[in-house]
């Protein structure tokens, strides 16, 4: 045995390698993974982390075209960052190179024709980029997810994921803070979550995300024991379990938690936080308002339906009969299959009806909700077997995930009530189901005040008179696709103040006012009759612009009758009057709202796109929450829960930071902070500080990672100061400064971790040596053969 007693303060002898500590320790190298393997594992986990973080983007786009450019962008960004790090590039250089590469990549993917050699962006490319960005801004406002992966949106997706990938790489490879990398990737993961409704596949992605994070942390060799507080000599730590084992435990726990708890995370299985409105495909949803809202302000005038009928009809998709949280909603639609011959039991048996048959051909429309004239009594067509009818609100839907789409056709027979106006007018009202007149307490009193004022002025006493009075009053208000005022809970107040809005607000408000008078009312959504394109055959073209909301009021013996409070600027509405309770024409002329002069024009009765409202303005009309989705009810809580959690975490982080940040006057704390910084560096480099390590042992191992002797000196200086701060109650500010400088030197001296380049070189050397050896062997054999032969 050789007695060993090194000078504790002597710098480490050259040639000492990790795993063999100076005291001759032969304890197994708990984290003895060679630097290269750690590197590759880190790279792989970063790649997995980022790719998994892309999964939620699938909710934003309605097909998978986005996958290749976005994933390729991420891989290029990671590869670039990692490759540059191999050559020792710092953060700034990497960032600059990343920006250049991003320019090249997006040029090559989105506008190769304008780029020189397909990659180098030219002035034209930049112009294309500018246009795309402008488009993207509009599309994001106008479209609801999932959307088609249009180039403008792809540009946003590629750029966003590229930025996140670069930031993750910066954290993982350069700053060597695995935790930060995981955090950034999580941000990337969660950004698309609130945007859309589809949740499939996400729960599956979460365990992978957590596993990748675990691997990243494990190879960063986070030592949980250090997290749990300063080790005390009494705590008999299992010394052989180093960072790797701890990392493995962490990973296992994380995967377990991910599998078990993924669905408990906020945002999973929940409706979207907000809907970006507009056209862009119909989300598969049972919520009729989502369907409506995507159409009320359409982004183009494309044909939705072609209707052949001998009289213009509103085509209704759904009725909203519940008012909650400042919005009209419908409960989920539960259909029952229609009869064998397509017969539908009407919602309310009316005394007198007129049968109208409507042939509908579906154009640019997808969805489960079938636009039909109300009340439909029979529906036929190739899709007959899928038709279902919800008796509670007279809605026709398709069963089993089927959707109507381009080219579908069906024939609907509606039994349009033909009530006797005088008789209805005389009726004093009746006691309907309470839920048809119920309102929450949150409805402002001014709604009822206004209603009572209107009926008082009109001297309306019967429900019919009152409904007509309110309808007529609202018809005198102003129509605008860009109503003034804000959104959300104030939208109703804003509308009542400004008396300006569009069908959503008009219908919602009229239904509210009626209910305050105990008149059963609900909001219907669907389409106005549209444009008469072939008067001979009675063919009407319904476009997205014809999306509409109106009011239905229940009368005994007659059923639900439509009322039209909206003074639509295109006049494409059917307004009942006391004399004409069954509106059979687009009857804007009946009321002649003074604010809409062009309605006096006869042509306005069968209008197309309104010329007065610019196309873009129509499509990008301001959203209002007067009518909102049923999802809104559910989504009220979890943003608050999430925000609360964030607050708690943030407060915790601030407190921890405050506790751990050294007081400048406390030299001991400063030295300790310097040492902790070195420990973090060690963790990132795969050289964790073990509980049984002295300062010198750990720092010597750490310094061996650096090529220059400066690291050894710095490690030595830091070890001296750190040990002194631990064991000797006299530390000067100078000593603290020395420790901090030493740590800074250490951090700077650390090399880009040895990786693939070095390994490739070594492999090449080995291969050459083997070849030479085998050549020698062959020569020897042949020589031997000649000799013996």
């Amino acid at each position, binding site marked *: 045995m050789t*007695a060993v007693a090194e000078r504790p303060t002597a710098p480490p002898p050259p040639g000492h390698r990790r795993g063999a500590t100076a005291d001759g320790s032969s*304890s197994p190298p708990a984290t003895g993974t060679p630097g290269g393997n750690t590197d590759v594992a880190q790279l792989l986990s970063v790649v997995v982390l980022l790719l998994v973080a892309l999964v939620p983007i699938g909710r934003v786009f309605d097909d998978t075209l986005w996958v290749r450019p976005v994933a390729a962008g991420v891989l290029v960004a990671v590869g670039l960052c990692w490759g540059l790090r191999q050559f020792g590039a710092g953060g700034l250089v990497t960032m600059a190179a990343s920006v250049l590469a991003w320019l090249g990549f997006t040029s090559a993917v989105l506008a190769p024709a304008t780029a020189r050699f397909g990659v180098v962006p030219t002035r034209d490319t930049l112009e294309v980029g500018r246009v795309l960005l402008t488009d993207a801004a509009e599309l994001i406002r106008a479209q609801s997810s999932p959307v088609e992966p249009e180039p403008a949106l792809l540009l946003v997706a590629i750029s966003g994921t590229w930025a996140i990938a670069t930031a993750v790489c910066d954290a993982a490879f350069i700053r060597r803070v695995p935790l930060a990398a995981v955090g950034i990737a999580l941000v990337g993961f969660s950004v698309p979550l609130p945007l859309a409704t589809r949740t499939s596949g996400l729960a599956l992605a979460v365990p992978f995300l957590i596993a990748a994070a675990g691997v990243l942390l494990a190879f960063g060799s986070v030592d949980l024991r250090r997290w749990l507080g300063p*080790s005390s000599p009494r705590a*008999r730590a299992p010394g*052989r379990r180093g960072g790797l084992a701890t990392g493995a435990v962490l990973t296992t726990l994380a995967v377990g938690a991910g599998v078990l708890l993924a669905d408990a995370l906020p945002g999973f299985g929940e409706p979207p936080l907000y809907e970006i409105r507009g056209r862009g495909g119909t989300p598969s949803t049972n919520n009729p308002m989502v369907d409506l809202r995507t159409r009320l302000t359409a982004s183009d005038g494309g044909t939705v339906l072609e209707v052949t009928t001998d009289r213009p009809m509103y085509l209704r998709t759904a009725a909203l009969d519940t008012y909650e949280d400042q919005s009209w909603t419908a409960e989920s639609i539960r259909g029952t299959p229609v009869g064998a011959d397509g017969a539908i039991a009407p919602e309310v048996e009316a005394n007198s009806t007129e049968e109208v048959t409507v042939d509908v051909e579906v154009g640019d429309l997808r969805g489960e909700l079938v636009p039909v004239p109300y009340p439909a009594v029979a529906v036929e067509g190739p899709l007959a077997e899928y038709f279902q009818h919800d008796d509670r609100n007279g809605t026709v839907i398709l069963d089993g995930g089927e959707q109507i789409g381009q080219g579908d056709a069906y024939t609907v027979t509606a039994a349009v009530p033909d009530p006797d106006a005088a008789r209805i007018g005389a009726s004093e009202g009746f006691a309907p189901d309470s839920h048809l007149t119920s309102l929450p307490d949150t409805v402002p009193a001014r709604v009822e005040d206004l209603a009572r004022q209107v009926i008082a002025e009109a001297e309306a006493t019967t429900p019919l008179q009152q409904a007509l009075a309110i309808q007529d009053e609202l018809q005198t208000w102003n129509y605008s696709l860009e109503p003034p005022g804000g959104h959300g809970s104030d939208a109703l107040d804003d509308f009542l103040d400004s008396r300006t809005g569009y069908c959503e607000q008009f219908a919602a408000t009229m239904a509210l006012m009626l209910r305050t008078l105990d008149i059963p009312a609900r909001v219907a959504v669907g389409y106005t009759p549209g444009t008469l394109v072939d008067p001979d055959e009675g063919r009407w073209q319904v476009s997205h612009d014809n999306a509409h909301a109106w009011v239905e009021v229940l009368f005994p013996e007659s059923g639900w009758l439509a009322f039209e409070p909206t003074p639509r600027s295109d006049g494409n509405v059917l307004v009942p009057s006391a004399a004409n309770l069954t509106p059979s024409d687009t009857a804007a002329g009946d009321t002649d709202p003074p604010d809409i002069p062009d309605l006096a024009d006869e042509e306005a009765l069968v209008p197309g796109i309104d010329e007065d409202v610019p196309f873009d303005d129509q499509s990008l009309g301001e959203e209002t929450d007067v009518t909102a989705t049923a999802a809104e009810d559910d989504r009220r809580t979890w943003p608050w829960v999430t925000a609360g959690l964030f607050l708690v975490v943030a407060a915790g982080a601030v407190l921890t930071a405050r506790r751990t940040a050294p007081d400048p006057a406390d030299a001991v704390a400063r030295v300790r902070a310097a040492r902790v910084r070195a420990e973090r560096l060690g963790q990132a480099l795969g050289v964790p500080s073990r509980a049984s390590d002295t300062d010198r042992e750990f720092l010597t191992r750490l310094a061996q990672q650096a090529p220059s002797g400066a690291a050894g000196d710095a490690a030595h200086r830091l070890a001296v100061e750190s040990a002194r701060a631990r064991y000797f109650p006299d530390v000067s500010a100078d000593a603290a400064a020395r420790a901090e400088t030493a740590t800074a030197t250490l951090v700077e001296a650390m090399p880009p971790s040895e990786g693939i380049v070095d390994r490739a070189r070594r492999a090449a050397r080995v291969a050459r040596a083997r070849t030479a050896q085998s050549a020698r062997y062959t020569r020897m054999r042949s020589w031997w053969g000649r000799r013996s032969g």
Partner: protein
Amino acid sequence: MTTEPHADAAVTQLAERFDAIEHNIGTVFEGKQDVVRLALIALLSEGHVLLEDVPGVGKTLLAKALARSISCSVRRIQFTPDLLPSDITGITVYNQERGDFEFKPGAVFANIVLGDEINRAGPKTQSALLEAMEEHTVTVDGTSHGLGTPFMVVATQNPIELDGTYPLPEAQRDRFMMRLSIGYPSPEAELGVLGVHGGGDRLPALEAVTDAREIAELIEAVKAVHVDESLQRYVVELVRATREHGEVELGASPRASLALLRGARALAGATRRPYVIADDIKALALPVLSHRLVLTPEAQLAGRSSEHVITAVLGDVPVPSGRG
């Protein structure tokens, strides 16, 4: 070697003298600086050293060089089977001139006692050293005689040649602060030995660089070196861990804790540090603890050594984080 900015004068003087002696010994005993340092640490922490190695590597040379560097009394005892305990302790004889009994001090009455091949003497003789080593006194015929300061026993034994030897009893082994092995010199050092020794023995020319009084002062300075309470606990944990280790039948004694702490103080002082750090303790754990452990027969059969156990213990017991 770093100069601690706050090292006080005593520690500075301690380190300077330490370096001087070390350098002095190094002129004749080359290439084994760490062994020299450990021996000096034992001297300054009032411990005794058991040099265990094969013949011819310089055990006696080291002991002699150490003794010569310090101007103090040195006695050499060649342990043989017929050596009597009284040869070591001394004997009371009747002085006819004075008509009274007179104490004739034995070989142990010196500042540095070199016991060569200690395992060649019988247990009785070996145990004659016991009291002297621990108590620094010798009792003969009911009268205690104090020993001077410093007092250090440097015993040597050959672990290979076991015929006709009496292995040291546990109690005696425990009284040695350290067991050191010198080991064969490196080829360069061996060449140097040839050159030096070929040109004549330089040992007689070795001059003392200090004296017994100064060493006594240094011993006092060592006692003043600060040890954080957490490190004292660390020492206790280490020693306790050797007792609880599965491969150990007999662990280290509390005397071992004491020796470890004292040695750490001396090592810290020698590095101009007025305080002990965990590295000091770790560096001394092997030489201070290894000879005190008795392994289980299974562990011995499995080829384990007490060095293995101590290394494992060092890797297991967490280093204290000190005051913060």
